[in-house]
């Protein structure tokens, strides 16, 4: 006889085990805090100058006495380059997500909230955003603005908003029909206030999830853009660039890939953990989502 799954039904149970949410938050805060400090004080963490290339030290495997994560195809220290990539990669990931999130959420909510004409118009705007290949946007921005931190952040933001908008649109559609919202509208509470006091808070879990995975996607997308020659300038130590450079060396020098991949995974893990921690805290605070 299979053990029956016990569903959370009481307020306490919904909140999950009492101690889990603070731990998750603490751990994620710790990791993210460390990442933030490393980004701020990069040079302290270098083992050697990340830009120092030495052809006689090419492709060396990791060793405790020498390069901790090995050296890459130009003899540069992989570990130091990973550290050097913090500011850039975390920066464009965050800013890109912010840009994409702002545009996506505003469009998604507006499209789902309004009736008929405006909705159709805005949904089509979102559709245009989804159908337009990201490659063309990236190429246009690079041609017009050039390659650099801000153009890359802008590209990533412009490329990520359609998906965010779509998901937020769908979720808002559902929320809109929830009883309390309909009730609020019947009571004459204005649209804008409804949105801010009811919809947005209810959207928070969705936004958290979407923001987290968009952030992860953008970190990866940076390497895709490097692949196409549209990413960070040649030689800049960013995780995306390093991933791209390590492609042909996957079998012969896998450490070139480990460094940036581990950095990205840790960052994503921490971001997801933060999201889950916030969710758990939310769960334990209120028995129901308002």
């Amino acid at each position, binding site marked *: 006889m299979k053990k029956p799954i016990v569903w959370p039904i009481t307020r306490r149970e919904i909140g999950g085990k009492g101690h889990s949410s603070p731990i998750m938050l603490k751990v994620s805060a710790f990791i993210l805090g460390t990442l933030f400090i490393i980004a701020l004080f990069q040079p302290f963490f270098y083992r050697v100058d990340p830009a120092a290339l030495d052809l006689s030290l090419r492709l060396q495997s990791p060793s405790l006495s020498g390069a901790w994560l090995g050296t890459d195809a130009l003899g540069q220290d992989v570990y130091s380059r990973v550290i050097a990539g913090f500011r850039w990669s975390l920066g464009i990931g965050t800013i890109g997500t912010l840009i994409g999130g702002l545009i996506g959420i505003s469009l998604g909510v507006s499209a789902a909230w309004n009736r008929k004409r405006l909705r159709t118009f805005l949904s089509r705007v979102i559709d245009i955003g989804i159908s337009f290949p990201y490659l063309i946007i990236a190429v246009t921005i690079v041609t017009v603005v050039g390659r650099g931190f801000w153009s890359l952040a802008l590209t990533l933001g412009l490329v990520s908003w*359609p998906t965010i908008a779509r998901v937020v649109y769908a979720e808002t559609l559902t929320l809109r029909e929830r009883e309390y919202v309909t009730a609020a509208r019947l009571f004459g509470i204005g649209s804008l206030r409804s949105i801010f006091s009811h919809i947005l808070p209810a959207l928070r879990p969705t936004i958290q999830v979407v923001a987290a995975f968009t952030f992860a996607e953008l970190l990866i997308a940076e390497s895709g853009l490097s692949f196409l020659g549209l990413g960070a300038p040649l030689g800049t130590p960013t995780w995306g660039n390093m991933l791209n450079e390590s492609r042909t060396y996957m079998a012969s020098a896998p450490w070139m890939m480990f460094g940036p991949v581990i950095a990205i995974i840790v960052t994503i893990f921490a971001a997801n953990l933060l999201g889950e921690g916030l969710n758990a805290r939310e769960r334990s605070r209120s028995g129901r989502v308002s």
Partner: protein
Amino acid sequence: MKQRLKAVGSRLLQLVVLLGTISTTLFLLLRLSGDPAILLAGEGASPETINAIRADYGFDKSLFEQYLIFIWDVVRLDFGRSLVNSQPALGFVLKYLPSTLHLTFLAILFNSLIAIPAGVWLGAKPTQRRRRVLSAIVSVAQGTPAYVIGLLLIQIFSVWFNWLPSIAGTGTWSWVLPTATLSFALAPNLIRVVAASIEDTTRQDYFRTAKANGAEPRVLLIRHSLPNALLSTTSLLGAQFAFLLSGALITEYIFAWPGLGLILVQSITNLDFPTIQATVFVVAYLVFFVNLIMDQVFRIADPRLRRSQL
């Protein structure tokens, strides 16, 4: 009946507006990006040759004139000939459509097969330890780019074990590795979205009521949670479909899969305007229909939405 016609009519209008806006935006962006005549003429060509080529393709006319000709042609689905291989651009692009759709559908299918059950499992009881482990694995998967997955899969299944081909078009199993690559790359996001939606439904009143009335967990999930989670799931799947049509180019690169992404990259490199326009047009057209289908799914999933016009 009249209602139906009106609905169909308005949809068609939306399609036309969509395609028109995209094509126009693209037209302008392309003219900003470079002069294909120079590229066609080659290194060290004389200005006369370049001008002759420009005249051939109508690039010497004013922007407005070019635009009018362009719109007139697009309306008749004539995208001209590719600047590079002189084949009719639309026909050339359409040749790549079957293999692109093939890979896209397979990727979406396997992505859903992996991600939806995993997401439901994760979302049903997110605090359980073993589900946390899955969450951690998903984080790792999110941090691994598609080409790493692809090259790894090739290394394992093609080089070491020689079980599967890594090149498109060789044998009946050449779709396996590229599909696996794309599915593993897209699944983590879908898992997260499904899990979040399912979890959200478990906190709703109707769910708790059903549970209090003694419903079985599996029934609860399938009949109550899943339909409501369907909304965000399908919307993400729709966005992923749109992405896969012309954006999976790194995977297509690695597996030499003849997809629209590859065509897009090549035509952008060669400043082959007609092919670029044709590709984007085809992609936009397909995405529109996928959105239509998704809207219907929305209606089925949430009856409350049937009232309002989507």
